[in-house]
């Protein structure tokens, strides 16, 4: 068991890079392709250094042709490769929506199970960097609407390091949403950290008073809100969904059966959001477990604005999560 407790200090960005390096080293079918992944080193410096290590064939800069290179990734996957396609931000991925939704997500079913598309598409998501309305949105909930693709939202160093390889081994298309505010997240990671499961939600903090359900960039804020609640003697359980499609509802419902109260934190717009889906499933599957209406803390329904104070007001923050939790707890049965 030596080494099992050894850790290294790292960042989310470095953990992602280590995952890429590991995947490229493990299997010759793996290659990375996208805008500025090579010479530039990646828009968020995730792929920095990989070009020198693996060469231009396998760390491939593309033109600004999202539909073209995402489609090429899908085609290469159909033809025996394990491509990792990076799209700079999820707003840009809308230019490739045809390829993702009409091809990647449909081909297995439409071909009667003859063809699979083992492509992994990575993209940055989320607000908080004052980049305004064309670089800051959260579309993971949209993509989670589509059958045939798996949606991952790594929120921890372990998941940043571990989700990629498991995603590549999935015979179907996987989209990994990296919240751009997480790239600088720093912490300790097990020295031997490797692949992790991509099926299960994780209980990030245990508690009995209420359940806070979240994912991605909102996990840190939700854990911070749980700290604030703990100071008031309230033990909140925090669930990190990790995978938005397929949803691990058993983990969510097990927690609810214990706490009977729930707040969902989702940076996406409230209408038609992932939080709405979870709420609906709670209504369908666990209505009688509830001691209070499920509450939501979501993105305000505006295009994300540029000024810091307005941007902050547009997405979930710790104070709002605490407030929603207290409101939920104030309902008496």
């Amino acid at each position, binding site marked *: 068991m030596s080494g099992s407790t050894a850790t290294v200090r790292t960042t989310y960005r470095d953990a992602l890079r280590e995952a890429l390096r590991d995947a490229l080293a493990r299997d010759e*079918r793996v*290659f990375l392709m996208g805008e500025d992944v090579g010479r530039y080193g990646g828009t968020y410096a995730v792929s920095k250094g990989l070009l020198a290590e693996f060469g231009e*064939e*396998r760390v491939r800069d*593309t*033109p600004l*042709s999202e*539909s*073209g*290179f*995402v*489609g*090429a*990734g*899908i*085609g*290469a*996957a*159909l*033809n*025996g*490769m394990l*491509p990792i396609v990076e799209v700079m931000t999820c707003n840009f991925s809308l230019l490739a929506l*045809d*390829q993702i939704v*009409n*091809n990647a997500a449909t*081909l*297995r*079913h*439409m*071909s*009667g*199970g*003859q*063809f*699979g598309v083992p492509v992994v598409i990575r993209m940055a998501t989320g607000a908080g960097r004052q980049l305004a309305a064309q670089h800051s949105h959260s579309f993971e909930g949209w993509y989670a609407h589509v*059958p*045939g693709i*798996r949606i991952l939202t790594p929120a921890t160093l372990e998941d940043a390091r571990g989700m990629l390889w498991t995603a590549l081994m*999935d*015979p*179907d298309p996987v989209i990994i949403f990296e919240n751009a505010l997480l790239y600088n997240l720093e912490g300790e990671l097990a020295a031997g950290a490797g692949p992790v499961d991509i099926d299960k939600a994780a209980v990030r903090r245990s508690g009995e008073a209420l359940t806070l359900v979240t994912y991605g960039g909102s996990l840190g804020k939700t854990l911070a809100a749980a700290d604030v609640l703990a100071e008031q003697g309230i033990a909140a359980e925090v669930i990190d969904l990790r995978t938005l*499609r*397929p949803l691990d509802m058993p983990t969510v419902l097990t927690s609810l059966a214990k706490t009977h109260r729930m707040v969902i934190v989702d940076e996406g717009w409230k209408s038609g959001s992932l939080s709405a889906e979870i709420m609906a499933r709670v209504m369908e599957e666990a209505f009688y477990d509830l001691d209070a209406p499920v509450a939501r803390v979501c993105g305000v329904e505006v295009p994300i604005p540029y000024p810091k104070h307005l941007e902050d007001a547009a997405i979930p923050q710790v104070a709002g999560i605490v407030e929603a939790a207290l409101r939920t707890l104030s309902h008496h049965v």
Partner: protein
Amino acid sequence: MNDAADRVGLLREMLRIRRFEEKCAELYSAGKIRGFLHLYIGEEAVATGVMQSLLPEDAVLATYREHGHALARGIPATAVMAEMYGKYEGCSRGRGGSMHIFDARTRFYGGNAIVGGGLPLAAGFGLADRMMRRPRVTACFFGEGAVAEGEFHEALNLASLWQLPVLFLCENNLYAMGTALPRSEANTDLCEKARSYRMPAQPVDGMDVEAVMAATKRAVSEVRAGGGPQFLEYRTYRFRAHSMFDPELYRDKQEVEEWKKRCPIAGYVARLEAAGILDGQQLAALEAGVAKEIAAAVAYAEAGSWEPVEQLTRDVCAAGAA
């Protein structure tokens, strides 16, 4: 193309497609085939000539007007017809229908009903083959309407930039549904568009199966040898309506009649007869053989089963529904 048997074989392939499509039209009227049905009648020389030029390990991507390509590529008429019906025995298990024919055995990757949607995939196929050093070619069919899509330009640029072994095969039948080429393109010279991406491009008489085959074979061998992608524009014409719902308000009957005089099948029959390698009796025998095959395909489809509803969500993902 001197061997008499080969030439009669080309005629037979075109006849198979023509009779299959005529039968589909009939079955559509009878309510056996539903959804959209796009017939290839008039364009048979293109798929026939191209498929003769490819190897089994090559990949084919086609459009929603792809019954002819599927048959010419070697997917049995039984499986294609069962797919028309939506039967479980169809080549896509009935899930795709007319517009979405797939077949792993012949490396036939659809059947794509998004105009231009197959072109980026083709670039990816070529990229995979190039990276794995496989001497394969990917043949990607699309209509002239696709050149207006961004995906056309993105895919041609990628393929040329990376020198990928892809054949971009444009079937120019002059109308994107009902929109004539000059009404949608500022530059109607399609080869010039391809050449602007620094790839060889050549117009081909798409009504002449031997011309199609000669031009395609040459292009295939150059692409396979590592010469990078090529573009071929087959000038052809669809004799029937765009789909079964099309009243054809956008083109003159006279124009259709003029093109019918260039029918790839009638023209080839005349040529083979003039060359003394086909007579009326042989043609009748060919027709009888094809009729028998089509009848067997229809019988197969009729006898086919419906996929059990319990399997509705099977193969959404490899492990089941997600």
